[in-house]
Structures are given as C-alpha cells and as structure tokens.
C-alpha cells in the first residue's frame, strides 16, 4: 500500500521537477489560451490607443510604452471572436510580445496567470478547434483541469508581416487565396468531377481561368452544356480546343470582334449618362483587338460628351490584330447607320474620319505590364479578365480601381462581374458596368 502511494508521490514530484515550459495564460471569448513566456516581455493594462488610418482592421493602433512606440493588435478581431463590450476609456489587458527585433502589443479579454508545464505534455492541435486557424496553434496542454491552446505567436504575427512584404496590394491579401483549391474542393464535394474537368480544360485549351469574376456564368453554362451534350450523346468533358470554343461561344460580349449595333450603343450611352466629366474625357480600352470596339466606343463618347476633348488608350498584346487598327478599313455593310456619319471614303475603302482616329492611341501593349498613362474616367475591358491567370485577374482589377478616377466607370464583359465593394454595380441590360466608389 505504502509503496504505491510512494510511487505516486514520486511521479508527482517528477512531474513538478520537469517543468520546462512556462506560458502566460489568458482568455479570449471564454476559452483559455497560452503564449510561451519567453516571447512575452511584460503584461500591462492600457487604454486610448492612437488610431492608425488605413491599417488592417485588427490593428487597434499604436501605443507609447515608456517611450517605445509599439503596434497594438486585437487578437479577438484577428480571430473573428466576439469581444465583450466595455466602457469607452476603460483599461484593457495587454500582453507585450518580443518578436525577433520588434515589440508588439496584443489585446486579450483578460490575462490569467503564469502556468508551468512539462513541454512533453503538449499535444499537437486537433483540427476540431475551429475558432482559430490551426496553423496558429502550437499545441494543446492540460493543467489543473483546464485545457489551454498554446498560440504560435511567431506564426500569427510573423505571417502578417510576411504577407505585406510579398504583396504590393494589401487589399488583395484577404480576398483570394481560397481560389484555385476552392474551385476543386467545391466541385469534388458535390461529385462534379465533370465540372472540375471542364474548368481545367478551359484553362488548358483557351487560357480561360474560372474565378470569382466569371464563376456564376461558368456554373450556369455548365448545366446548359451538360444537358445539350447529353442530348447529343456527346462527352460532357471538353476533348479538344474546338469543344472549349463551343463552350465559350455564349461567353463573349455582344458584338465581339465587330462594330457595336444600335441596341448595344444605346445601352452604353445610357450608362455614360452617369459619368461626370470635367474637361477631357480619358478612356482606357485594354484588349481592343482589331479596334472595332474602340471605334464604336469613341463615337458614342463623342456623341455623349460633344464638348470634351477625347483621349482613348486602346491596348492589345496581339500584334497582328492591333497593327491594322489605326488604319482600319471596312465596308459600309459592316456598321450601323449611326456610326456611318463618322466615316470617310479612303483609297482602299471606308475609314473613320481624322477626328475620331486622332482621339485614339492604339498601342501594342501588355496590360499586365505597367500602364504609364494618367487616371481615366472610363475603362472598357470586355472579356479580357477571364483570360488572365487568377492572381493576374486580381491584380488587374486592382489596377482598374487604381487607374479610375473616383466615380469613374468600368465596363466589363457580358458575363464577367466584380463582387468587391470597391465597385457599385450599375449594369444595364447587356452592358455590365461598375462605378468606382
């Protein structure tokens, strides 16, 4: 009897002796968390942080810690946890962490105590702890009947720094990431391997990348396609480039590769009524192809803003196509009567008059490279987004937003859409348009 209790005592003692890991514990939304004490410089209470404009939402501001200016991060906002309401100017519990070469303050609900444990008793995190992204959790440990999640602060706070370093567009950091995998996940979960395959082959055959900007269309088009192919007794999957072309047939915007018809022109005019311009009207038309779209657009602009100086930058990276654009020759059968009054009879056929042609700069240019021209009032980028890679699409949307003046309008392809709150949807019938907020 005595030997057993002795053994127990010995075990107990061993455990106590083996304390080689201490952590500061605190609570967030009622759960217990710990941070390695070696990373903690001190704990303190503070209030009235100095707000930093345009920082990420979880950055509460900066704080003067006895002469050192440190950034303050709210872990509850960072982890999307509810924060208890507190009085405006009351003190909040704060842990000051020392990471590599800088200090950072972390706000928590309440700081508990310092707990010593044996590092061998730390267990790897289980995916079930859903509140916090699992990669931020170093492990789980039990102490005196309570479970503590040990946070890996290096990963949490080091990571954000890393993200900012690699991406010049901080706004985008939060949005994408999920894309390509999510696309496959979603498809597989619902057993739609066919869909995943179509997404894959569109990319291979025609460089068409399915993303948030066109997913809605691809989804509904896929259903339609499956019906049609099943009725025809053909494979749902795209076997060759021609299949991809057939699949994409209805994707392209109205009047792609030709002059715009009267119906489309009047829809665009309707949208342009919402555009406020002062003096010059600057327009960017990436992906202009052989220039049919650019000329149609320029004439509409001319009619909508008769008293303004027009400047249209038309870009394409297909040299063969765009080299014919500046001196485009066509026959009167190609275009609607409305456009006809701006044409002159040239040596080789009908051409647009000098006034129209002088308003347009056709450039052999890749829009993914830097775009060296001033801010514009209008961007017409029909069916160009979908043919860029995922990250390039995001970059391009960002570029559109940067290049547009406030209140400027972006016209996308018929089946392309932007779900970001950077833009307000002002679409009209066949024309998908957005106004920059």
């Amino acid at each position: 009897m005595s030997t057993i209790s002795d053994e127990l005592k010995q075990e107990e003692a061993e455990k106590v002796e083996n304390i080689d890991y201490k952590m500061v514990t605190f609570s967030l939304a009622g759960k217990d968390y710990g941070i390695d004490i070696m990373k903690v410089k001190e704990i303190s209470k503070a209030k009235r942080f100095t707000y930093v404009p345009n920082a990420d939402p979880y950055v509460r501001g900066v704080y003067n810690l006895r002469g050192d200016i440190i950034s303050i991060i709210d872990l509850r906002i960072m982890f999307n946890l509810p924060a208890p309401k507190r009085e405006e100017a009351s003190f909040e519990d704060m842990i000051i962490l020392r990471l590599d070469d800088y200090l950072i303050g972390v706000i928590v609900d309440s700081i508990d105590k310092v707990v010593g444990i044996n590092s061998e008793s730390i267990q790897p995190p289980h995916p079930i702890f859903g509140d916090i992204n699992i990669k931020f959790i170093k492990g789980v440990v039990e102490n005196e009947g309570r479970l503590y999640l040990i946070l890996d602060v290096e990963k949490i706070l080091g990571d954000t720094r890393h993200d900012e370093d690699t991406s010049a567009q901080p706004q985008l950091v939060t949005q994408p990431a999920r894309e390509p995998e999510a696309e496959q996940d979603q498809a597989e979960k619902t057993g739609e391997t066919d869909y995943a395959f179509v997404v894959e082959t569109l990319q291979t055959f025609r460089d068409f990348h399915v993303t948030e900007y066109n997913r809605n269309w691809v989804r509904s088009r896929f259903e339609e396609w499956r019906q049609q192919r099943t009725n025809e007794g053909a494979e749902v999957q795209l076997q060759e480039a021609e299949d991809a072309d057939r699949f994409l047939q209805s994707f392209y915007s109205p009047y792609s590769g030709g002059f715009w018809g009267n119906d489309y022109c009047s829809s665009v005019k309707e949208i342009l009524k919402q555009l406020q311009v002062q003096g010059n009207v600057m327009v960017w038309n990436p992906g202009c192809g052989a220039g049919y779209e650019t000329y149609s657009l320029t004439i509409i602009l001319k009619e909508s803003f008769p008293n303004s100086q027009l400047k249209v930058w038309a870009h394409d990276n297909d040299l063969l196509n765009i080299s014919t654009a500046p001196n485009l020759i066509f026959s009167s059968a190609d275009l609607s009567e409305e456009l006809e009054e701006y044409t002159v009879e040239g040596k080789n056929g009908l051409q647009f008059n000098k006034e129209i042609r002088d308003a347009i700069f056709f450039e052999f240019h890749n829009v993914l490279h830097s775009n060296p021209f001033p801010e514009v009032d209008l961007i017409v980028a029909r069916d160009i987004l979908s043919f860029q890679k995922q990250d390039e699409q995001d970059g391009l949307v960002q570029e559109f937003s940067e290049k547009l003046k406030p209140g400027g309008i972006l016209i996308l392809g018929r089946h392309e859409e932007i779900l970001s709150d950077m833009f307000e949807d002002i679409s009209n019938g066949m024309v998908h348009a957005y106004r920059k907020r």
Partner: protein
Amino acid sequence: MRVEYINPFVEAAFNVLREVLSEEVKRGELFLKSTSQPVLGVAVIVGLTGDVEGRVLFDMKKSVALAIASQMNGEELQAMDDLAKATISELANMITGQAVTKLHELGFKFDLTPPAIITGDNMEVSNSGVEALIVPVELQAGKIEINVAVRERA
C-alpha cells in the same frame, strides 16, 4: 507602345542592316518585355525625345559587333577598339535616324540623342515603368536585339 511606331523601327533596321552588310536579314518574332533582361555584351543606347520619351537599345554579342564592324570597315578588326565602337555607334545612329525620319513623315515629332556605347559582361537592362518592344534580327554573324522602350509624354 503605339502601333504606328513599330513599323518604322523594324523597317529602318532592315533597310540599314541589309545595306551596310549586303546580306539577307531575317526577322524574329516581335514581343513585349517589362522585366529586366541580360545585355549580351555590347549595347548602344540612343535616347528619344519629342512627342515621346524613351530610348532604343541595340544589343549584341561582342563577336557579332566585331563581325559587323569588320564588314562595315572593309577590314578585319580583332578587338573592340575605338574604331569598332565608333562603327557600331554609327550603325545605331543610322537605324534610329532612319526610323525617326519615317516617323516624321507620318506626322510624329521625335528627336534623338547621340548614341552611347556600353560594353562589358554580365550586364542587365531594366525598363522601370515602360515595357520594351523587342525586335530580334538574325544576321549571318549572329543576333542583334533591338529593344525599343518609349512612352507618350503625359
């Protein structure tokens, strides 16, 4: 780069090279580049101003430069001496000059700066803010890359 500018440069390069080397010149595929790229060994830069701002860079290996200079001078040159350098600079001047003349006929006003020649190994050129049009030209002695980076004056 404006479409109208492309042809004058390509044509001028071919006319001049064909004339001074009296051989058939082949054109490679034109393409755009915005990142930095290595310089082959001998580079001549001619600046452009006027309606646009930018520069033309003629880029070739040293052996190609020597072969061209020898052919143009009618004697075998062994090293990139002053004569060889002056010859290559002059070639760049001739091509750019002819291109600018053609552009002038089309109604674009361009001025050019005297050529500068740069030689050395492991050099790189980067076009910050402007993308460059690359016109590769195949000669018997090797390849010349004509790298045109211009943008409209805002």
